């Protein structure tokens, strides 16, 4: 008897009113399943729309996409500015969530656009905070060569006291 009462007491201490009015569980379950189903459908539709959008707006012969990654888990990237052929093509201010996602190894697609085949001049300006909390500013240049296929370039930021920006063609 004591054992049962002790269990009851423990459960009581957990304190949640795990009931939801007089709504049958089956109704909640059925609704939840329908919500899951519509999520699946809309994800498919979104994927289809994104593919269509990419094909229409950024055809492969002119497409260029620039990505940003941070190779230092403690470097906080604060802002970035991309210039191509003397025109500013992208600017971005990073919030905590963005910084954290980059530090964990995520890669941000910062710019997608269209350019002609041939040579282009890319300039990257970044600012951030080093692991020690000191402000860091850096600029880097890259000669981007666009050929017939789509062009993807990763801007790799590896910063400690002094920023180090490198570029990788994919």
């Amino acid at each position, binding site marked *: 008897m004591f054992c049962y009462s002790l269990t009851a007491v423990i459960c009581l201490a957990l304190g949640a009113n795990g009931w939801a009015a007089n709504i049958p569980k089956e*109704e909640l379950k059925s609704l939840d399943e329908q919500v899951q189903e*519509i999520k*699946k459908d*809309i994800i498919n539709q*979104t994927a289809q729309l994104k593919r269509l959008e990419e094909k229409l707006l950024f055809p492969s012969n002119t497409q260029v996409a620039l*990505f940003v990654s941070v190779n230092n888990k403690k470097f906080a990237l604060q802002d970035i500015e991309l210039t191509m052929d003397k025109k500013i093509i992208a600017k971005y201010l990073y919030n905590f969530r963005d910084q954290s996602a980059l530090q964990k*190894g995520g890669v941000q697609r910062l710019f997608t656009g269209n350019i002609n085949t041939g040579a282009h001049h890319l300039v990257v300006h970044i600012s951030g905070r080093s692991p020690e909390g000191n402000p860091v500013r850096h600029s880097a240049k890259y000669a981007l060569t666009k050929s*017939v296929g789509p062009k993807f370039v990763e801007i790799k930021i590896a910063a400690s006291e002094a920023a180090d920006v490198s570029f990788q063609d994919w």
Partner: protein
Amino acid sequence: VQRYRSLALCALWLFCGQVWAGPEAKPLHDLFYGEALYLAYQNRHFDAITRLDIELGQFYAQDQADLDPLVFHQNEAEFNVGDLEISYRMHQRAGRALKAIIEGKVPQSVRNLAAFRLARILFRKGQAVNALHVMDLIKDPVAEAIRIENTFLKAQIYLATGRFKDSSRLLQTIQHEEKVRGYADYNLAIALAQDGQREQAVKQLTKVGGLRSGKPYMLALRDKANLALGHQYERKGMAGKAKAFLDRVRLDGPFSNTALLKAGWMYMALQQYDRALVPWTLLHKRQTSNANVQEALLAVPYAYGKLKLYGKAAALYGHAMNVFGNEVQRLDDSIDSIRQGKFLKAILREEAKVDKFWMLNLSKLPDAPQTRYLLDLMASHDFQESLKNYHDLAELQRRLKTYLPDLAVYEEMIEIRKHYYTPVLAKIAIQFRNLDTRIKLRVGQRDRLKKRIASMLINRRPAFLATAFEHNALESLAQLARRRNLDARTAHRIARLKGIVHWRLESEYDERLTRAYINFHELEVVIAALKKQYNAFVRTRQMATQSYEGYTIPIRQLRTRIQQSQRIVDQLMARQGKLLQIMAIAELERRRKKLEKYQIKARFALAESYDRANKAKALRLQKP
């Protein structure tokens, strides 16, 4: 039923509150996979799943998928999609994907991982027996990354399926692990209690009650354990022990109100009325929407009554009645507000989501109902899930609204392109056909030359390298030779001339062949440039055509599907919203009924206090 609810809650504490943790950092081989991770790390589940779906779809559609860089992340990507789907509460799809992995030809380590995740989904969905069957598919060696969680999950499933001994045995093996510290101890106490091991259960609970940690969830767990122990000893009449445990509950923790209320009742049971007033007076001053505080509003004057301070008691009962009256009015207003749909509007407001206490913040918004009363309801799994679904549906509705205008813009863009390219391409097509014929002719000539030079490298053919003059000369000499009545001198001269030409062809053969070879290679350069130009033209023409052709049907189909989804989302949102309203109203009505009972009690107690105060006064006056 309550036991399972509680167990489920324990599980939820550990797992549901987690944000998507993602894989261990590894060298990145696929840029687009990295992009999906970026979205996932920001908890943008929908975008991350869509990105990964696109990537995996393209990966599997390829003939030579092994050459795709995603091959390095394939398994990881599949699991991440599953994890993200779970985070996005798409358990069905995640479950199906995990089942496919388990039944597929995969290494045991991968099967273990998939089985663990599937079991976790099933357990969360309340299917403990099915979860146990899936857990049986996990074979040693279990990867270190999931070893502790795997054991903890199995112990929880055992607990839910009545195998208390097995559960406590497993929990004892991991109770010192940092990852499950506190939770394993608490669940062990439940398992021991259920198994009839009373003393060990209390000992275990005492251990949880003494846990040292600065983490908020550990402190909350510690408070719960102390509260449970205090309550237990109070019920057994061991007030001293009960007090010791109740005193350990933090005054600023989530269980502080319950502990203070219980502490007061404990003193009342010991007839130490003045002491009961200490915790209750503290409670008396707190937020009046809290159920414990409301009970304390009655308890404090009750204690004063026991101390024969009837005047003070009557005043406090009067105060309680006022508070209850106000609260009932607030509840009525809130119920009306919910019925008018203001609750649903309020929960979708952006300003309500500024922090994790958004539900409380709702009360501060204009026209919003009293959400403080819904805090208990918020702890219920069904309400939480319904609320999250409602938010997700609102987000889907918002997305779908932007898709249709996008499609309209694309159609317009396609129409403009078609308008521009169609006449231009028609003219170009005629010119191109002429050019194409000439190019094909020249390329055919070049092919023949290539063959001839190749054959001359094997068989000596000097005649092939004769110049046009030499060809004509030889032809003229042959014609002259065929004439009748040639005199001997002329025939001799013709033969000599033929000999000169042949001699030249033979003697200059190597030099001529080399020159021909060099010339042919120069021709190859020109032909390559021509082909490049040709291909660029074909490609550009193809791109121009592709920029407006072949979209009409896909766009029309997509529009129909999006419109259909919009209708479904609207319907589901209305149903989900209705259920939320029903749940919220039921909770508020439950609280109102409780308050109405308190009002009646307070009214009677007030009258009784006045009577007793008057009697006491009369007695005092009668005394000489």
